[in-house]
């Protein structure tokens, strides 16, 4: 594996981790909102 490949792996890992973090944060907010709405039912 060339240094360029390793660099590309790091870049992809970082981009995937950022995307996963954003998704998790979104679901935290969503489940919080669902809970508030359901508690008001």
């Amino acid at each position, binding site marked *: 594996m060339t240094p360029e490949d390793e660099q590309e*792996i790091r870049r992809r*890992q970082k981009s995937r981790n950022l995307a996963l973090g954003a998704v998790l944060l979104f679901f935290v907010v969503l489940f919080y*909102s*669902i809970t508030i709405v359901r508690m008001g039912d």
Partner: protein
Amino acid sequence: MPGIVPDRAQPGEKMSATNATAASMPGDWHDFFALTKPRVMSLVIFTGLCGLLAAPGNINPVLGFTAILCIALAAGGAAALNMWWEADLDRVMKRTAGRPIPTGRLQRRDARDFGLLLAGASVITMGLAIGWLAAAILALSVFYYAVIYTMWLKPRTPQNIVIGGGAGAFPPLIGWVAVTGDVTAMPILLFAIIFFWTPPHFWALALFVQTDYAKAGIPMMPVVRGERSTRRQILGYAVLLAPIALAPFLIGAAGPLYGVVAAVLSLGFVALAWPVATRSAASGDAMRPEKRLFGFSIVYLFVLFAALVADAYISRGGFLA
């Protein structure tokens, strides 16, 4: 990190250096997104949203958003499972050879795990936030597409598109049930509209797009039964669709706006299906009637469902009521 060795190589295929490097790369998030078939998902979201908006009753906007999100995620999960299962077929067809698994950008098992995660998470979220009836129908829709259609019937019968239409027909039904909490005649009619719309829509496309389904061993109708039979069946389904599309008005579940739009659209659909059914194309034919029918079929579904929502809002006394 995903596995270094790809799950399955083609028999007799040697891996090039480029493919080997691609296989050792972790998948990019764009590739995971591509697994969800975003273009198909847009239709799923639209019809699901129309079912939700047209249903009698109110739903909190947060819960409504969650319901549509779950429908979209489940559709994405089912699409990823479809790409996981059909990776070998996708490799031999020009239209699908550029997908993430055939190109080696994603590992096959990553697609499977991603699909299961999306499907599982969407069903559980739907159950917790909306209700378990909607969640059960959502789970059934994923099973229907991924197992009954993709794994079982698609490679075995030329009626695969008819059966596959059922998978695309679930979203408005689920959207409706998310609001009402029960299954009545109206959501079943919405299901039936998409079910009977799918064969003429897809076969019109199959007539003018040269695909290599035959090469991949998939028994598509124009290949197995021939063009003549496919053309006749297109007209048959277009005629069957008309009373089904009008049924919501006829049973009193939709108002005159919907009734007029459904009647005009259905007449147009049959009128455009007629020349397709009664002609035979020579080689080099521009296939204009088939292209016209395919284009109109997309407009048909969008306008019909938009009319359903508009009609529902008018009958409730306006958008602000």
